[in-house]
């Protein structure tokens, strides 16, 4: 019995079949995603490192408190919408992969199309958020003079408040905030953009019947892995910038 198990184990690595029981392409997609998670991890941990080195950091509930079309103070509202969009597009992607297993071309098309729409909706929301942050200015006390600053890579109007001419006014905050926020959400947005492009290519190939002819929908699975990874990264970006 034991020798049989040992034999089976050695045979797993003697060639002729995948020892990990997955195809080469899928395994390499996993290893790419592992390396990409370290890239994102390095960015986010560096952000954490700088944030820990400061006595004061911005109050995210004050920075991210607007919702397009509303004047009210709505902390967390818009980013929740973005998060829900991305989670939902992850579900539609996994359903597309599932339809692919069943060789159901129409099903793959339908769910993949919804995934692309979700990705585009997320990117749209992100561009609205960025535009609002950069163009919407706030009074900041700089060297005894009030200036109006937007939130950019070089300007942070979200510093501690001080008394000035009988009113509370913000002072410049840590400049690293803009760089990290736009850098990391931008890098994530770049990943989403790539994901949308990949999904569009997959959609066209599905429509042409390429996968039906090939006999399997493994490409959809690989694109799906990438798309879920984008969602996974967003879960952590959401945590680091908007929640804690």
């Amino acid at each position, binding site marked *: 019995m034991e020798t049989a198990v040992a034999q089976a184990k050695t045979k797993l690595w003697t060639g002729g079949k995948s020892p990990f029981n997955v195809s080469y392409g899928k395994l390499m997609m996993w290893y790419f995603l592992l390396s990409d998670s*370290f890239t994102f991890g390095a960015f986010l941990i560096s952000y954490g490192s700088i944030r820990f080195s400061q006595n004061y950091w911005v109050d995210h509930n004050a920075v991210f408190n607007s919702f397009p079309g509303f004047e009210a103070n709505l902390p967390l509202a818009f980013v929740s919408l973005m998060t829900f969009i991305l989670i939902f597009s992850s579900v539609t992607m996994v359903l597309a992969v*599932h339809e692919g297993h069943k060789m159901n071309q129409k099903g793959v098309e339908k769910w993949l199309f919804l995934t692309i729409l979700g990705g585009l909706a997320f990117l749209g929301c992100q561009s609205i958020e960025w535009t609002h942050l950069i163009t919407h200015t706030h009074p900041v006390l700089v060297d005894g003079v*009030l200036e109006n600053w937007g939130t950019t890579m070089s300007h942070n109007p979200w510093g501690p408040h001080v008394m000035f001419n009988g009113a509370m006014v913000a002072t410049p905050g840590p400049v690293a905030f803009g760089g990290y926020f736009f850098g990391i959400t931008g890098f994530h947005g770049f990943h989403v953009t790539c994901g949308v492009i990949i999904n569009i290519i997959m959609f066209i190939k599905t429509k042409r019947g390429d996968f039906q002819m090939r006999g399997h929908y493994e490409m959809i699975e690989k694109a799906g892995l990438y798309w879920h990874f984008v969602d996974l990264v967003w879960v952590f970006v959401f945590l680091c910038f908007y929640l804690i």
Partner: protein
Amino acid sequence: MPEQTTAQVLTHVSDEAHVKRIWKAFWILLILTVLELGLGLVIYQLDKGDPSPWLILFIKGVITIFTVAKAFYIISIFMHLGDEIRSMMLSLAIPATLFIWFIIAFLADGNSFRNLRNTDAGSRIYIEQKVHHHYVPPVVPAEKSDKKLD
């Protein structure tokens, strides 16, 4: 003929179970996100007063645990890693444990940097200043404010 029908029924059942599992994972993710948002708003409300930093840290810790749970569901259900064989999972999980060192080392580094700066590398005592953390609406109107005031 009857066998074929049984097989069809069986695939149909396992197929339905699979779709059910996907939607279950979706609802779990949604509920965890809503809970995170709820706790985020609790922090927002607490910040208006003068909360204990330990309480805030505790709530943030709970949110972080929820996030890790979400990551687990995405990886195991959506990315189907839970269905792969053990050696394949380990080939990804073992390198990923580097993150434990990575996070601890670099946050400790940042913390040490702050202490060194605040105390001039230990040569003086740091007295924490109270800063106004939450947003206070400015009294000065925004359009007038870029001209010089004295």
